[in-house]
């Protein structure tokens, strides 16, 4: 398990419990996110506060999960991005695909 989840009414916060969000954890990350969606979660907040960097494999898993969420009328948002991770989202324009919040609390408020 790399996600630590917490239920908030109909929302779920999923904190990524690793520093290096790279190809070694991308498949597990995707499987855990899909399980949350398949379990009925309609609003998933992926908290990247502990993450130092993300690579393309991890981002690919996140986008794949987002597509699955949309198919299931659910939403995935992200929070806790450090400067490098936010820069990467902006560089490849994933900031247009994901709502980005500073903290999980802020993401829940905007649900």
């Amino acid at each position, binding site marked *: 398990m790399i996600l630590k989840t917490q239920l908030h009414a109909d929302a779920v916060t999923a904190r990524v419990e690793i520093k290096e969000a790279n190809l070694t954890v991308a498949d597990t990350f995707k499987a855990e996110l899909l399980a949350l969606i398949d379990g009925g979660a309609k609003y998933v907040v992926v908290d990247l506060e502990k993450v130092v*960097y993300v690579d393309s494999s991890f981002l690919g898993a996140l986008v794949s999960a*987002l597509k699955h969420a949309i198919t299931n009328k659910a939403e995935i948002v992200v929070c806790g991005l450090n400067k490098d991770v936010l820069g990467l989202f902006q*560089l490849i324009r994933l900031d247009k*695909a994901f709502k980005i919040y500073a903290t999980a609390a802020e993401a829940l408020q905007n649900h």
Partner: protein
Amino acid sequence: MQPRLKHCKTINMPVVETSKFVFGNKAEQLYPLTMEILGHIENEVAIDEETAQKARMVLIELLTNAIKHGGAAECTLEVIAAEDKVIIKKSDIGEALVIRSEGALYQWPLPGVHQGGRSITIYGDGICNLKGSLANSRRVRFFIEENIKPNAGEIRNLPEHFGLMIITRACQAFEYEFDIATCTNNFTATLAVGLQTKKHTV
């Protein structure tokens, strides 16, 4: 008219050295080596934070690519840190580049001698495409084609492979060359330094 050799003495060319790093294609070495190489670059030339950030992205993706697609035990990174640019060249003797796109399979070196001048689409989301400009059957330069179809971007069309896209967007120039003589794969990423850093619209 070509300058005579003796005139070279009057040209004050700075000496820029190439530094080599070996990556054992192990995930646990990925971040430590990224930071080691970045430290080396920052020691050689005063790059700004934006350039450092892009250099980190490029290094992480080059090393990730080596683990995922290299098929070799190790790869070599040659780093040149000059005043106006940083060049990072990743070389290995693993599997050559393969791109599947639009129903076609591109495997380097590409067949035939008439590849030069063609462009291929590698992937895209309807708003922008990652493309490859073929110099010849061995060398391809990656570039981004923006605003293909405004408003056509949809989540379901998003690509799920971002490695080459990240490096291409972070760099001033990014290319791959298959060296036939040595059967070596060479990815060369060139980052502009400081105020000349390429700005991207997001």
